[in-house]
């Protein structure tokens, strides 16, 4: 078991004929992911090292049974590509693209909110890796092996750092899910933690947050109320200067300032342990794992 992507994943890559799209599509295929098709308007009929390319997601789904989309197109085309994938019947959409306009994200999020069977992960995320099963995205898979730690993170490279620290202490992962750091992520910490809670293979959950917004505070409430498995958290940004955007209106809205200290306090108030550095997160995880075995 794993969450979201596994050996049943049939991946269609939007933007497959671009440099990055080609590189990661092939990389994912090399890892073992079933990369069944790609979409590039106007290049229907071509192929990328044997992966057939279609003009539309509708054709790609009809011809290759794609159930998962990875979106690699430039920001100005990304919202359209996500909406197209949904319209064509794809049920998991992983958007790697960084820099999508915020109002595009807002429209996409609220549109997908009325489609309970469709899940968007990202945008501006590194994707999802289920070690030994499938890699959808840009996570460097060689650092990770199969295991029982589920990782969910707002950050890309920080995820690798934490995963690496865990790996050095002998942990493997059920799945590593990057939800992205944008203001309107398609999936939240809560969404992914709920999946890990339900996944029999996952025994320990690591959640990596950062300053801004209130997603970590909301996750703290959810974990306390709904999650039976141990959770270790990390928050980046203790040393960061006050956010330069949103100013104080953000604080009026959410009632929280979104600081790292505030987030750590909210998590600890609910009994969730917070590591102060990636190294400390791995140490805490090892400690908890030891107690689980004991």
């Amino acid at each position, binding site marked *: 078991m794993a969450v979201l992507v596994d050996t049943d994943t049939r991946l269609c890559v939007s933007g497959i004929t671009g440099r990055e799209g080609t590189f990661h599509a092939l990389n994912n295929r090399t890892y073992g992911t079933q990369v069944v098709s790609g979409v590039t308007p106007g290049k229907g009929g071509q192929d990328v090292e044997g992966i057939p390319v279609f003009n539309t997601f509708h054709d790609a789904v009809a011809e290759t049974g794609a159930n998962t989309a990875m979106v690699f197109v430039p920001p100005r085309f990304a919202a359209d590509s996500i909406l197209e994938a949904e319209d064509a019947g794809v049920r998991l959409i992983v958007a790697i693209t960084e820099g999508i306009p915020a109002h595009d994200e807002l429209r996409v999020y609220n549109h997908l909110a009325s489609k309970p069977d469709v899940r968007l992960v990202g945008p501006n995320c590194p994707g999802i890796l289920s070690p030994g099963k499938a890699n959808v995205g840009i996570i460097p898979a060689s650092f990770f092996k199969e295991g029982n730690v589920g990782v969910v993170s707002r950050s890309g490279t920080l995820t690798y750092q934490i995963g690496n620290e865990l790996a050095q202490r002998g942990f493997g992962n059920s799945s590593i899910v990057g939800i992205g750091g944008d203001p309107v992520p398609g999936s939240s910490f809560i969404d992914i933690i709920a999946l890990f809670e339900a996944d029999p293979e996952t025994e320990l959950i690591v959640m990596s947050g950062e300053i801004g917004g209130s997603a970590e505070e*909301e996750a703290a409430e959810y974990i306390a109320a709904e999650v039976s498995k141990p959770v270790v958290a990390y928050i980046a940004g203790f040393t960061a200067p006050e956010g330069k955007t949103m100013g104080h209106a953000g604080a009026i809205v959410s009632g929280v300032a979104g600081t790292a200290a505030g987030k750590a306090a909210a998590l600890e108030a609910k009994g969730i342990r917070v590591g102060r550095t*990636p190294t400390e997160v791995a140490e805490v995880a090892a400690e908890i794992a030891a107690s689980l075995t004991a």
Partner: protein
Amino acid sequence: MFRAAMDLLEYQGKQLFARHGVPVPSGSPATSLEQAVAAADEIGYPCVVKAQVLIGGRGKAGGIKVAADRDEAEAHARAILGMDIRGFTVHEVWIEAASDIAEEYYASIVFDRSAKKPLVLLSKEGGMEIEEVAERDPSLIARVHVDPLIGFQDFHARRLCFEAGLDGDLVRPVGALLAKLYEAFVREEALLVEVNPLTVGGDRSVTALDAKVTLDDNSLFRHPDNAELRNLSAEDPQEQMAKERGLTYVSLDGDIGILGNGAGLVMSTLDVVAQAGGAPANFLDAGGGSKAEAITSAVEVILNNPNVKAVLFNIFGGITRCDEVAQGLIEAFSSLDVTVPFVVRLDGTNDVQGRELLSQADLPNVHTEATMLGAAQKVVELAAGAR
């Protein structure tokens, strides 16, 4: 977190509002004394001379003055142009017709990240202390979420006005202003529009007397006019230089230059450096997939800050290839006169090749470390030695 956003000066915000029918006072911007006086003459007296800076508290700092006649206008403009307001130099003033103010309300539209919907706020308690009002008695601020797919409806406007306790005769004009404000928020792809104060005149007309607008950098390709509004003069020189090179850079107070790939990892790096007893000089995210060229640029930006005593490179390669990073660093050393020590930690994609390149190049005073923690400790030690 360090999302690319663009704050507008008050007058830029008002001009943007006016395009969508939000009522604003008439006025003109001026960057010189002569322009200011000419504008005041054109507008007539009394008029108001307002400092244009991207920071609050202008009024208290003496940056907003009413002029009864030309002499006063000239005196105020002379005093305000060039004034320093909380670290920002006033390069521009806005001369506007004086308003008849009976009441001061507050209105804004923000992204509510938690609800994933725009949130419209309205309060009768406008003026400077809105945050205090929010803390003291949140019920004084009416809040309504808008489903962005259906947009701002008349009922949203009515609900805000009735819940904020507005007089019946103001429900329509304030509601209409809010609808136009929402249109501006959506059409211009703003992250924030704020009107404080939203004034009611003696004649019961409503006006946006101030304007705070934050635009989304990511959407500027659709708004070429807005893209030109950037107010570079107010930005930190390193930040400006970084922006021109497509890097995300934030100046900090310390002496250790930091470069990483990915905002989360860079923030984490700052934290670890601080824990090790150091003080970061900057946040610099070279971005995913950083190429050699971007790395060279980044080094230039970091070293442009004279406070920097040592530099930490913390790279965990995913899209970013460590050999590209090493190559960039080598090129930077060949084109720049580097006098401070570097600590480099390379992990992830092509890390072996990257470390090999560095070792071959044998750059002066460049130390490689295997772990993030080790690298942080080393750079703190080197910076302390250089003080």
